[in-house]
């Protein structure tokens, strides 16, 4: 977006767009009626070819500032406010903030982020114990929510709004304004050509007035806004360029707002569901839940999902990709509030939309169906425990905690191998060679002692604190008792006659992400507007075209010229087309008219406007 890049001195009028300043001062205001043309002088300050913010543009003299030496005008508090506001909304500041935004975004990609990779942050803490507190203090683990990052983008958006608002006003004025007067010297403009048609007797239609009328009609049909000034017509088109520009930038603000609102009103929650289990959309049912700022429980529409079956498909033939997942499908039964029940499927790229939220399939793994039986025959523990996958072949790890019902509190760390193979290094350590259940083996390390559950400190269900415990089965067990190895259906004795543990079987679990963002479609809408605005702002040329007719001794002289307002590589060609069509209307044979147009564009070699037109080019994107 083009803004006035002049270092606007305090007190002078803020002009967000030099473009429009040019429009107002307009091409040289000398009369263009026949006989009045002042061919030889150009008002430098009002040069129509130089937008005021062009590099070579003449800087507006600072009011109060004297010729030599810098005299700072006295500023009151309001003066300072205005000064800072102008600084903030200037193009240079905006550019600086943009660059700063790019730089400020970098740290967040170098260190793990709490939002996207919480485990990475924990790992970073253990790996860099000295560096972590320092980095954490400056907030690099939450880069995109940190005060400094927010400051940059908020300033940028304030600056942006400070640019959009006055520019929109200007644009509305420009939309209502008529095209400016025809410049006195068209020959200085881009694509200029002058054609004299000999003859021009009365009544032949070759008089300036009818030539101008024809030109006006033609330009109007081509979508130009026209205005006749004496023997010339002034035309402008491409207002959509600025409209697109404003739409693009406003839509960016829209994106920011809707992202913020959506994040505040929405929520995300995660839940692991084992085959056969039912998940009810209520706060307590979630394993983890991240509500937005304005979230309330009542937003959770009561529905439930039962995971009937979870199917996986792995590559079996391609030797380079054995075991690579090909498909995950969760078949669920969804029950809504009014009792409707329907069978649905959730896949990785196709979430289930239900109750105003989307349910995504983000992960999966194996869950162990285990029963711990006490010597007296009671069953203090029987449950299905999800094990977290550790690698591509789904070697999985999980924890079983039995706090009550046995002589001692026991905890078990389990390793599950869906396709167990011996690593054959003599250690007896197993590995999984394939993610599917070809040879499922569960290995349990058993600990007895204090599980630490009575302290009231919340514990993860996926980890076991072994500090207050002794390993009674596993590699570190004193008496050399090996870890318990079980295949589905098997039962093993717990050491020390504590009881038995039975591996009833393996089930699949699906890790579901429930996401609700009421503003999501709005974000998409604004993003679409951004894109549409961008296309319009960059590729619709804004240009002025003038056609001037005058009677000379040789006949009727027709002049054509254009002025680019913003990037416009095809201006010269466009003026040529206007000329060729107009000449045809004026009775010149079409092929001759075309030649005339081509002849001229050939003389300007390529599509670069040269001479004054080049200087007049202004970029406003």
């Amino acid at each position, binding site marked *: *977006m083009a803004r006035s890049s002049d270092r606007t001195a305090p007190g002078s009028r803020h002009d967000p767009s030099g473009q429009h300043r040019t429009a107002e001062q307009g091409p040289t205001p000398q009369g263009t009626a026949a006989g009045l043309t002042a061919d030889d002088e150009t008002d430098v300050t009002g040069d129509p070819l130089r937008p005021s913010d062009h590099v070579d543009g003449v800087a507006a003299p600072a009011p109060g500032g004297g010729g030599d030496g810098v005299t700072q005008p006295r500023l009151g508090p309001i003066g300072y406010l205005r000064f800072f506001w102008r600084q903030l909304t200037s193009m240079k500041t905006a*550019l600086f903030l943009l660059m700063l935004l790019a730089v400020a975004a970098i740290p967040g990609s170098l260190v793990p982020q709490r939002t996207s990779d919480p485990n990475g942050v924990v790992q970073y803490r253990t790996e860099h114990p000295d560096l972590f507190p320092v980095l954490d203090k400056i907030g690099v683990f939450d880069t995109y929510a940190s005060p400094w990052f927010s400051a940059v983008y908020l300033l940028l958006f304030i600056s942006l709004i400070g640019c959009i608002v006055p520019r929109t006003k200007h644009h509305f004025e420009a939309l209502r304004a008529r095209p400016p007067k025809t410049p006195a010297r068209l020959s200085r403009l881009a694509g200029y050509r002058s054609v004299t048609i*000999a003859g021009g007797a009365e009544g032949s239609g070759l008089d300036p007035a009818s030539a101008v009328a024809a030109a006006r009609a033609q330009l109007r049909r081509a979508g130009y806004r026209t205005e006749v000034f004496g023997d010339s017509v002034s035309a402008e088109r491409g207002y959509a360029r600025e409209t697109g520009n404003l739409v693009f930038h406003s839509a960016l603000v829209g994106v920011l707002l809707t992202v913020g609102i959506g994040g505040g009103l929405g929520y995300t929650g995660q839940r692991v569901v084992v085959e056969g289990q039912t998940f009810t959309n209520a706060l307590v049912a979630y394993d983890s839940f991240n509500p937005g700022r304005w979230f309330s429980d009542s937003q959770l529409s009561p529905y439930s999902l039962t995971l009937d079956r979870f199917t996986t498909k792995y590559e079996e033939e391609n030797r380079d*990709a054995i075991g690579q997942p*090909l498909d995950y499908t969760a078949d669920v039964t969804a029950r809504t509030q009014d009792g409707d029940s329907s069978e649905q499927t959730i896949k990785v*790229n196709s979430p289930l939309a239900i109750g105003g939220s989307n349910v995504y399939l*983000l992960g999966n793994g194996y869950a162990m169906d285990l029963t711990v039986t006490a010597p007296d025959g009671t069953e203090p523990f029987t449950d299905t425990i999800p094990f977290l996958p550790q690698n591509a072949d789904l070697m999985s790890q999980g924890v079983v905690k039995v706090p009550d019902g046995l002589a001692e509190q026991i905890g078990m760390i389990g390793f599950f191998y869906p396709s167990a193979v011996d690593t054959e290094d003599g250690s007896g350590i197993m590995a999984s060679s394939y993610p599917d259940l070809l040879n499922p083996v569960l290995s349990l390390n058993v600990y007895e002692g204090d599980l630490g559950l009575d302290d009231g400190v919340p514990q993860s269900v996926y980890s076991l604190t072994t500090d207050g415990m002794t390993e009674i089965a596993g590699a570190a067990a004193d008496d050399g008792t090996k870890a318990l190895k079980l295949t589905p259906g098997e039962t093993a004795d717990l050491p020390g006659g504590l009881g038995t543990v039975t591996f009833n079987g393996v089930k699949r679990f699906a890790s579901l992400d429930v996401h609700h963002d009421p503003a999501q479609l709005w974000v998409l809408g604004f993003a679409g507007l951004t*894109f549409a605005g961008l296309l319009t702002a960059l590729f619709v040329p804004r240009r002025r075209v003038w056609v001037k007719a005058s009677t000379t001794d040789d006949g009727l002289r027709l002049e054509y010229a254009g002025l680019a307002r913003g990037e416009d590589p095809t201006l010269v060609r466009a003026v040529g087309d206007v000329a060729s069509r107009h000449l045809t209307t004026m009775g010149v044979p079409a092929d001759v008219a075309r030649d005339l147009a081509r002849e001229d564009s050939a003389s300007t070699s*390529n599509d670069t406007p040269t001479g004054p037109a080049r200087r007049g080019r202004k970029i*406003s994107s």
Partner: protein
Amino acid sequence: MTATDLAYYSLVAVYSAMAIYTISFVAYALDLAKRSGDAQLAAKAATAPAAVGADAQGAGAERVVTASAGGRTVVLDRTATAAGGADAPRASSSGRRPSRFERVATSMLVLGLVVHVVSVVFRGLAAGRVPWANMFEFSLTGTAIIVGVFLVVRVFVDVSYLGAYVTGLNLILLAIGTVNYYVAVVPLQPALQSAWLVIHVLVAIIGTGFFAIAAGLSAAQLVQTKRDQAKLANLRFMDTLPGADRLEDLAYRVALVGFVLWTFTLIAGAVWAERAWGRYWGWDTKEVWTFIIWVLYAGYIHARATRGWRGARSSWLSIIGFAAVMFNFSVVNVFFKGLHAYSGL
């Protein structure tokens, strides 16, 4: 043919394409050398007889009778200003006939691209899907598209002086991609099984192609600016290139197309992320870098409208932008942890 055969032939075609590109690169380099000689000769010739062409051009309001049709004479009045005044593009840049080296280089480039495209198609057939699902395939298709974009731009504007840059860059990227990133054909993992793979990634690759050309033009512009300031008197071949202003215009227009495509990539990526990962934006490392690149190019576009930033300064932004694109593809893919873990390495 089995998939393995197709993958093998694809690889054979890549190496053949690289050989042909090498010839093209050498020929383009020779063309630059020849340009140096031509420029020297031209400089000598210019000093001897007072430029004849300039005389004709500067003749002022010369009148050319164009046609006399239907008993009516139509006259085109030419004026000196319309024919290009003081800052017309450097001599010989537009009217220059391509040298033999350049013609050889371009034909080799076209031939190389044909073989390259065969390789891409075979790879796609072998995999039974679009050939850009991992880093090797991305390099393979991406380099083909850079050459394609170059040849397309060349149809509209004469940018053949960039030939050595494009073929050189292309060779390096293709060689790194093939030697370091090669992976056998594997099926798509569930997260990639989406129509967005076709759209999002393809648009990103094409955008990258435009950014590559724009960066080359910006680099040429920087050299030209230095020469204008008389800091680089040698590099004679640069005389046969357009002036810094013209190069800046070209770089800007090419980068604009890239920016539009990149904007689309960003939006399409967000839409896909919403489908696949349950959120449209999560500051994943690849998302961050795509965003940084977008901001850099947005800055580049704005810089052209800012006093004091036109010319060399803005062109640095274009080059930094492309460096970030390359960084995003290479370093971020391989060394940064993130959800876009599709390098296949």
